[in-house]
């Protein structure tokens, strides 16, 4: 063990040094120094060696209680030192439990500090409580126990949100906490819980969305954009994800990629295609055959692409959105048939026999009979992807002479 190389005197010195930094930061309201005292998950050498010192010294409690400048914060400090030690030793459940105590005690003090000087420390605590909860749940699950720490961290964050939802300068922190909550709810699969905090952010009069830091607005729009995709509100999803894309730090390519991963299916649904260059640059080539299928009207290619990347699309929650592109692909295919017919014989082109469509589909290795094709054509007309009517007896689609295949131009298919 590393700390065997440390002397008792050295351990004593390190712990006292930490305690002094803590009380100095509070008395001078030095937010930058303060936040580094809580950053467990950062694995800073400073905290790691503190962990060794605490483990070696055994009786850090005595040190905390021997001076007023530390003991007044003993509710924060005692569990915090325990947590630091547990974390280093890989006891994540214990580390989480202790950190949760620290966090609750911190919030009590935080409420009393008038200014927002400790907001960055709060961010660190909010972030780390989530990360610790995740590690604790992994540990619980691996020993066959029920993982409920992340859920508990979510409850704590709601409490923090409440502490920030006031008129003072602390309220700009609310969006960061919201985003951490989103991460928790998405991870737990309880995304319906996002609704109440979204409502608070978007309708409460104390919040002005523009006042929040840019990085939090980008993160917020990414997650709420994803929710809009789940709910198939495409214009809204387009707005939010495009906002995130436009305002995201361009050097954060991993995040740009994530935004695009969810935005592309939305754009496709409203008839807009990404350049191939975009797909290459951000490694999103799983979409390239889908884009090609839309361009061509190649239903077989669409279905193959969906199958090839089914797992990936399902995990991201975009599979159903992409599957619904079938209608747009049908539209494009019929349009091509129409144009080809028009080139041969313009006078008859607007009449498309169903059996011709059946034949084209058969060529694409898709086996559908005339009745099934009729059904699809009826849907295309119903959803205004095709203008015309049915001559049912003669099994012919009679297309409108003007604009028989209305373009989506940024609007979703009629539902």
């Amino acid at each position, binding site marked *: 063990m590393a700390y065997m190389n440390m002397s008792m005197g050295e351990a004593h010195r390190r712990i006292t040094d930490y305690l002094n930094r803590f009380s100095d930061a509070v008395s001078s309201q030095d937010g930058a120094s303060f936040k580094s005292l809580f950053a467990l998950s950062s694995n800073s050498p400073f905290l790691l060696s503190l962990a060794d010192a605490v483990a070696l010294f055994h009786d850090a409690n005595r040190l905390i209680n021997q001076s007023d400048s530390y003991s007044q914060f003993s509710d924060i400090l005692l569990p915090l030192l325990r947590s630091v030690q547990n974390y280093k030793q*890989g006891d994540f459940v214990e580390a989480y439990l202790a950190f949760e105590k620290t966090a609750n005690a911190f919030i009590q003090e935080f409420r009393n500090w008038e200014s927002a000087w400790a907001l960055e420390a709060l961010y660190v605590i909010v972030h780390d409580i989530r990360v610790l909860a995740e590690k604790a749940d992994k540990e619980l*699950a*691996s020993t066959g126990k029920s993982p409920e720490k992340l859920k508990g961290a979510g409850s704590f964050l709601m409490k923090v949100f409440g502490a920030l939802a006031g008129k003072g300068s602390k309220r700009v922190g609310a969006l960061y906490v919201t985003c951490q909550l989103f991460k928790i709810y998405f991870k737990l699969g309880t995304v319906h819980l996002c609704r109440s905090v979204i409502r608070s952010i978007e309708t409460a009069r104390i919040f002005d969305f523009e006042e929040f830091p*840019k990085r939090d607005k980008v993160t917020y729009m990414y997650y709420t954009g994803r929710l809009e995709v789940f709910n198939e509100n495409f214009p809204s999803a387009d707005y939010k994800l495009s906002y995130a894309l436009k305002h995201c730090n361009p050097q954060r390519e991993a995040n740009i990629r994530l935004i695009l991963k969810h935005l592309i299916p939305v754009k496709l649904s409203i008839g*807009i295609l990404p350049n191939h*260059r975009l797909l290459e640059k951000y490694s999103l080539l799983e979409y390239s055959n889908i884009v090609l299928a839309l361009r061509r009207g190649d239903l077989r290619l669409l279905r193959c692409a969906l199958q090839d990347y089914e797992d990936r699309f399902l995990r*991201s929650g975009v599979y159903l959105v992409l599957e619904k592109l079938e209608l747009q692909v049908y539209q494009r295919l019929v349009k091509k048939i129409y144009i080809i017919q028009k080139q041969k014989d313009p006078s008859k082109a607007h009449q498309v026999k169903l059996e011709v469509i059946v034949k084209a589909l058969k060529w694409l290795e898709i086996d559908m009979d005339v009745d099934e094709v009729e059904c699809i054509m009826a849907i295309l007309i119903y959803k205004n992807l095709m203008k015309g009517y049915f001559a049912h007896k003669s099994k012919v689609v009679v297309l409108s002479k003007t604009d028989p295949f209305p373009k989506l131009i940024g609007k979703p298919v009629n539902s």
Partner: protein
Amino acid sequence: MATEPKAATEDVKIDLFEDDDEFEEFEINEEWDDKEEGKDVTQQWEDDWDDDDVSDDFSLQLRRELESNNDKN
């Protein structure tokens, strides 16, 4: 570095949700100028692709296929 949890092994079935698409944290004071480079990535979309061009390979093959039936008749 923190040591691994005592009981965990890689192939233990963990009944937890994952979110593959978790956004990376920005640094607390991360600043950037999104006016210049941000534009590039937002300009990579086409809305005029749905044209009447049937000279591509796929369309030519489709045409051949549609015409082939006439030969049989």
